């Protein structure tokens, strides 16, 4: 029995490859398995090649990457187009369409000869049973259900539901195609060491992706206004909210451009509502001026940036962690706005709620750095008890404060009571121009300095939020990893692999990236003899950002790599082994000197 299986399926657009993957992970989630599914397409808008990777496990899945345990190829041209996204090794079990005419010992895979290969007449089985080759994907899920013992009943129920409106004949045809897959699997059983173990607990998991759960979190947090502009890979947030937010008396405004989108959000916030926008790199560039306005006017708002490859159009459909500098610094003038990053689909819920809370508490824009991978991968999530999450509302003026109301009053915390149109006595002028405590425009240098100081001081308490940093592994381990966002899943998996080898490692995962909480990093670095930042960007932006604020010793280095080329846990493990070896060498050297 194995605890973890990675299945990759590729075919032509229209082969139903994605729908097969979705059926599989849905069945797995229902039965209590953990899983992740990623999709990949050719660059054509429609048609072209399509593939998916489904990773299923008896334990929580930390990242979707790794070589395939099972490869399913409906045709080899399309399969090969995905290259490193569907890595086949000699241990991979290969299932392919017989009609390709390729001999089982002559697979068109460079330098690899998989040991277990099945040539299956998938199209023929579909045609014979369902009367159409369209049922190829049904045969595939039958095969996988049969081999891994997942979803025999639930997938069949799903087929019946899906085809119900097409009539009994279609339903039965597809059910027969599914059964044909099951029969083939039964006739060609897997060896024991390829079968997947039972899930740890059989309670159903939620199944969703980062964009949908982010939008759901916004609804939970009380967001009633979304303004934005469609942009890959963030658009599903707007799409989800458009389906839901109206039911709560809210609105989605698809603006004429990114600037107007966030502008409307600034307006809605001024009007007293919790409001959000979502975008990706190019949109963030355009929204920058408005974010500065929200900072100086001290208006709460949440801005989700689903990161993709950049600069400019970059690689819109692939994840990268290269917008951290932009999130922290893209504003003219002195300004500070919190930047948060979720580490997984499930974590996106809490981080988005936190973003609304921080925005309200500190009367500030808050940026959430999601990324394409978290945003668009399907992931099983343990049911979340929403009652654990408190909601924060902006500090509104009391009746006494509405007498001679002073909007930007310099208080001890730096946070001033914020009124909103409609409230008698709370009338004030909000502005992007520097203003005095009463809101009156000013060019006075002393007032500017005082207001800047106030606007920075209000974030002091944010630096006490140690709960926005997670540490895992042995507390006294001599080697420390630092990683954020989706890549922290890779780091976490590498940590597990290292621990299994007896290596002593720990991992720091910051979810509050900016302001940099210097002490968290300094304490962590002080406790290790070697450190490694693991990041999906060319420059290693977190490593460099932390160096701006904290003393980072030379023994802490970055492992940074451009996006669209995921860092693999095994790659991190290799570095960890080297670090351990170098530590031992240093130790022996020291002993020799002392000896």
């Amino acid at each position: 029995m194995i605890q973890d299986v990675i299945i990759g399926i590729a075919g032509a657009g229209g082969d139903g490859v994605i729908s097969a993957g979705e059926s599989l992970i849905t069945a797995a989630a229902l039965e209590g398995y953990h899983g992740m599914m990623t999709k990949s397409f050719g660059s054509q808008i429609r048609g072209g090649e399509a593939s998916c990777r489904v990773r299923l496990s008896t334990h929580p899945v930390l990242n979707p990457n790794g070589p395939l345990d099972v490869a399913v190829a409906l045709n080899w041209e399309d399969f090969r187009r995905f290259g490193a996204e569907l890595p086949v090794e000699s241990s991979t079990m290969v299932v392919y369409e017989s009609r390709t005419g390729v001999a089982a010992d002559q697979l068109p895979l460079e330098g690899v000869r998989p040991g277990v290969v099945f040539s299956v007449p998938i199209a023929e089985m579909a045609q014979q049973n369902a009367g159409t080759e369209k049922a190829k994907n049904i045969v595939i899920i039958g095969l996988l259900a049969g081999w891994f013992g997942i979803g025999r009943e639930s997938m069949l129920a799903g087929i019946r539901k899906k085809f119900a409106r097409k009539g009994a004949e279609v339903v039965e045809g597809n059910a027969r195609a599914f059964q044909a897959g099951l029969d083939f699997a039964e006739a060609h059983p897997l060896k024991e060491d390829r079968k997947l173990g039972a899930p740890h607990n059989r309670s159903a998991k939620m199944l969703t992706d980062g964009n949908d759960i982010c939008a759901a979190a916004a609804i939970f947090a009380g967001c009633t206004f979304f303004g934005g502009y469609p942009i890959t890979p963030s658009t599903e947030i707007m799409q989800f909210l458009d389906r839901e937010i109206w039911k709560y008396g809210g609105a989605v405004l698809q603006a004429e451009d990114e600037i107007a989108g966030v502008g409307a959000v600034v307006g809605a916030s001024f009007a007293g509502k919790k409001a959000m926008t979502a975008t990706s790199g190019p949109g963030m560039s355009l929204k920058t001026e408005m974010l500065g306005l929200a900072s100086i006017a001290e208006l709460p708002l949440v801005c989700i940036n689903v990161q993709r490859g950049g600069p400019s159009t970059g690689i819109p459909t692939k994840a990268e962690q290269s917008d951290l500098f932009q999130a922290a610094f893209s504003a003219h003038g002195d300004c500070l706005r919190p930047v948060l990053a979720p580490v997984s689909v499930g974590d996106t819920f809490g981080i988005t709620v936190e973003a609304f809370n921080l925005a309200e508490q500190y009367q500030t824009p808050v940026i959430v750095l999601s990324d394409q991978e978290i945003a668009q991968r399907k992931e099983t999530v343990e049911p979340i008890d929403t009652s654990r999450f408190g909601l924060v509302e902006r500090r509104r003026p009391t009746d006494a404060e509405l007498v001679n109301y002073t909007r930007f009053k310099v208080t001890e915390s730096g946070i001033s009571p914020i009124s909103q149109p409609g409230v008698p006595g709370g009338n004030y002028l909000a502005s992007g121009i520097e203003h005095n405590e009463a809101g009156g425009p000013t060019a006075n240098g002393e007032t500017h300095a005082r207001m800047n100081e106030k606007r920075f001081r209000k974030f002091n308490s944010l630096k006490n939020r140690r709960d926005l940093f997670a540490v895992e592994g042995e507390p006294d381990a001599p080697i420390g990893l630092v990683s954020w966002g989706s890549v922290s899943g890779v780091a976490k998996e590498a940590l597990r692999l290292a621990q299994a080898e007896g290596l002593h490692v720990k991992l720091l995962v910051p979810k509050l990236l900016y302001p940099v909480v210097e002490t968290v990093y300094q304490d962590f670095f002080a406790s290790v003899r070697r450190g490694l930042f693991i990041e999906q960007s060319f420059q290693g932006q977190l490593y460099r950002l932390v160096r701006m604020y904290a003393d980072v010793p030379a023994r802490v280095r970055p492992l940074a790599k451009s996006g669209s080329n995921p860092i693999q846990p095994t790659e991190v493990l290799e570095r960890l082994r080297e670090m351990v070896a170098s530590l031992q060498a240093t130790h022996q050297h020291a002993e020799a000197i002392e000896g």
Partner: protein
Amino acid sequence: MTTLTPVSSPKFQAGTFKSDLKPIWCPGCGDFGVLTALTRALAAVGRPPHEIAFISGIGCSSRIPGYTTAYGFNTVHGRALPIAQGIKVANPALLVIAAGGDGDGFSIGGGHVAHVIRRNIDLTYLVMDNHIYGLTKGQLSPTSHRGRKTVTSNFGSLEDPVNPLLYVMGYGASFVAQGSPVDMAGLTKVIEEGIRFPGFAFINIQSPCVTYGEEEQQLKAQKAKMQSLGAMGHDPSDLAKATELARDYGTKLYTGVLYRNPNPPPTYGEMAAERHHALESQAVPRHDILKRFLPTH
């Protein structure tokens, strides 16, 4: 033709809407007249200052919200309209006014005008059109005429001006008017009508720049040139005639209501309210929002 709701005993005086801030405008600036006309119009409309949100961009004229007692928001250059729309959609009960200059509205923010019109969000947009960039000291504006010499068009502008009236009519605006501080009563009246109009209302105001403006844009010249649409017997429900008259922008100066749609389309707010009413019963409690992610096969 829509008639104004008569206000028999105004609850407010114009002074109620004037703040204590001293305007930075040059003595004689047309914007003083706009401020006076606006506060008089607001007094006539009768909504208290705290129910008014007054949004502007950047420029001399965009300082205007601070000179009123309404909730004001002096935003960034060219973006008064998106922010004003967010406010109105978020709280439809507010009276929302947007204001700015010709550069704000038809250069840097020109892209937003088409969209507020097609959304028909119920707000009033006042453009103080002075044909020049005053705050930055005299550069070419989108409504400067061809041949105009400024510090950024030393040999004369090679560009034709934008025609604000035709621009908004082209996108289907339902209320289009023009005014001038030369005629305070008329200006007050069109602002009041614009505010009362159910839907997006556009008012172009010939507000001269006394420092960088040309002779022909000053109040004296305007007075000689001005033609009241009312006195001309213009029927504001006549779209074809209104469009024809709008073409004269730059050569003639018509004041009054150029076009008022006799059958105004539903506003964004009205349609949103209907949708809210139709959908509210479908809302699951917010704390149950995640339940939809539990799979069912």
